[in-house]
């Protein structure tokens, strides 16, 4: 839903574009910014009254049952069961090669499981991939994007793919471009961006849709500077509170313990521990932090 504060953030040229998208009759040669914002908000509120439907995710938003994935003879994931409910951030942690990225790739429908089922927002990823994929947002481990598109073109493209109405896409693009300090790169080609800025562009591409979201984030803090990381963490908490379901795969235990409500610890394709931080600490008597729980479950705490 579009808020007045978000519209006020927009630049004058963007406001005019928004007015055109909303088909507002502007007959004056000059118009005061405040008056234009008023007109836009009147139109948006009228539309909201007519068209607004409160979106809610099904519970559980992510449901993985008996997931097995083999690559030839190698077992990447073995018997994984996982649920993420709306209003929850779950951390998928584990050492390199534990099967976290494979799990997220199956969850997002990039690859198929060898056996088991994956549901996103109540839709089975194999039987009903389009509604399941419409519900999920994915940030890959290694951020990549079309180098010949500008950031603005990319975000607009993502909005079109996910069928976000133009007016919402325009307002939300400005909101998140400001949040992730991407304004100066908005018309730069993605191929020229640094890794951190590319990660921010991908995040804007996801958040251009209306919440609530089902998010599968693989190392989302990767490449972000402290301010960007702080903004993202704060926004993820806000999303959780508003009813989004978030699954984060990360190596950075500091981020995981700071952000996640529950943890699933994987090692060599299998789940070796799960629960809240308190539950995990209770299960591992010698551990005093998530880091020590992790080490104790994945090979022992070094002397």
């Amino acid at each position, binding site marked *: 839903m579009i808020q007045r504060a978000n519209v006020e953030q927009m630049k004058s040229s963007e406001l005019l574009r928004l007015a055109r998208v909303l088909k507002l009759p502007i007959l004056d040669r000059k118009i005061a910014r405040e008056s234009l914002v008023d007109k836009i908000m009147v139109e948006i509120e009228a539309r909201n009254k007519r068209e607004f439907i409160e979106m809610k995710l099904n519970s559980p938003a992510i449901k993985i049952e008996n997931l097995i994935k083999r690559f030839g003879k190698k077992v990447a994931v073995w018997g994984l069961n996982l649920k993420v409910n709306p209003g929850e951030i779950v951390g998928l942690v584990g050492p390199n090669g534990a099967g976290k990225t494979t799990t997220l790739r199956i969850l*997002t429908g990039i690859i198929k499981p060898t056996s088991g089922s994956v549901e996103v927002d109540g839709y089975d990823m194999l039987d009903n991939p389009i509604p399941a*994929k419409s519900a999920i947002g*994915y940030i*890959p481990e290694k951020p990549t994007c079309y180098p*010949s598109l*500008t950031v603005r073109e990319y975000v607009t493209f993502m909005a079109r793919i996910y069928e976000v109405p133009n007016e919402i896409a325009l307002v939300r693009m400005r909101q998140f471009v400001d949040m992730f300090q991407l304004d100066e790169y908005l018309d730069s*080609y993605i191929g*020229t961006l640094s890794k951190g800025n590319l990660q921010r562009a991908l995040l804007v591409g996801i958040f251009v849709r209306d919440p609530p979201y089902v998010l599968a984030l693989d190392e989302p803090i990767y490449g972000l500077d402290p301010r960007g990381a702080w903004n993202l963490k704060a926004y993820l908490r806000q999303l959780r509170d508003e009813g989004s379901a978030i699954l984060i795969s990360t190596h950075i235990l500091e981020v995981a313990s700071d952000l996640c409500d529950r943890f699933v610890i994987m090692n060599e394709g299998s789940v070796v521990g799960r629960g809240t931080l308190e539950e995990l600490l209770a299960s591992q008597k010698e551990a005093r932090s998530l880091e020590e729980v992790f080490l104790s479950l994945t090979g022992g705490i070094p002397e």
Partner: protein
Amino acid sequence: MKPSTFRIIRNEIQMLYNQFKQAITIPSMLLFYGVTLIGVFFVSLVVSSLLSFAPIISQLGTLLETTIDRGMFFGAFAILSASSVITGYFGLGPAAIITSEDENLLLPAPVKPYQIFLGRYTRRIVRKMAFTILGILAIFPLLLSANILFFSIIFILFCMIIFFETNYFLGAMSSYIRLYVGQRYKSPLRYIVVILIGLVMLIPAIPSFTSTFTVAYVFPSNAFALVITEMTGVFALDVPFLLGAGLQLMMYIICLLLTASITGYDYYEVFSASKGSEEIEGRFSKVIRGNIDFSNSRFNDPTVWIMLKDFWSRLRSPFQIWKYIYAVVGMIFVLYLNLFHPVWFRPLVVPPDLAFAVVPAFVLMLILLVQMSSLTSMLSFVDEKDNVYLLKASPFKSKDIVLAKFLLSFMEVGIAAIPACGFLIYIMRVEGYLALITLAAPLVILFTATGVAVGAYVPVMTNDPKTLPVPLAFSYPIINLSLGTAMVLVVAVFADSLLVLIALPVYVLGLTLFFLASAVRALNSYK
């Protein structure tokens, strides 16, 4: 068509347009595009002034009709379709169009696989058309000299593109058959299917199907052959050539739609599997290579060490070993041809009317063959991928790195060029070939140096060092063709004087040093 297919196509066209915009606004890109176009124009101008093509073209029909029969002519096109089907069977099919960017953006998005395919395919065809138009403009002098009607050549090229694109779809469908059969049967006997579908492509070319206008002409190879025969009058049936073009177009559309409809989620898996195995060492090369570990080398010289690293790491790639096998088998074969002159493979008999064109054709072929062999040198830096920055940051001098790349590439280009040159000597036994073939060595030296320089410039022009920019890739053969033509000109001018012994080395070594110095300069300017 669902609206999102249009959106994806629009995005692909936008990316193409942006690439074009970038190319014309970045001076170095514009320079290389300019070099390519002007180079092709120049080479075609030189070639057309050296030879008058009109007599060759006018006699080509008679030559074709006396040398081969109608069945062979149709068979040649059928073999092209059959080879597309066979290579397609073992290829990735529609998964080949998926990129790493798609994997992260479109594969998890609510987009159907056929939509991604159609979007990417539209881009491919628009791009191909643009390059074809530019190519035609660049070879305009050649077309003019050959007295070929401009629109006829455009039409033939259009039909050729349709034919190759239809073959591409046939290959994609063949890969689907493999996928389908592989999911149901595990016996190695399932590969018999590839022989069967190969035969299906060949059977319609049998003379009993093509001697009159039959239903067999719906096959793309026959339809394309019909267009050529009816347009040129060679082996003509007196059927309107537009009928052939219509059949080609119909089959193209059917094959396009069939390929789109078989492009399913299974291909995401195929792409993912191919991505995982692209770096894996070929089984055969592992057997040949054995347990050699180049890190145990006793050499401490940076140049030698980089050469060893490149040699062994390239040998671990699945196809590199086949290059060496080709070199050995090819050398033995051309030795056999030149020593024993087998009756089953006779050299080309050139009609007396065309004798004047044989020596220039020999030299042109020599330049082209060396050029084709020298492509490896262009990849010497590109194959490093992102490691090129590690190499640059390593405690080696830039000139040692460039020298190492040049020397190893020289060895590789040399072994690839020897069988090709031996074959050329045999097939076009022209007078004075022994003197002419000595030009191969300077050409190899020069083309290797240009290849190394062009490869070294990739990270200067783009921040994706593993992808060769289009203008660089296209300008490389053009630069070489121009340098090769100029070298032949130098030799021709000084041929009657001893000065040739000075002029040729000065030309070759001077330019080689210039290109190697350019490579060092490029390496020093990486961001």
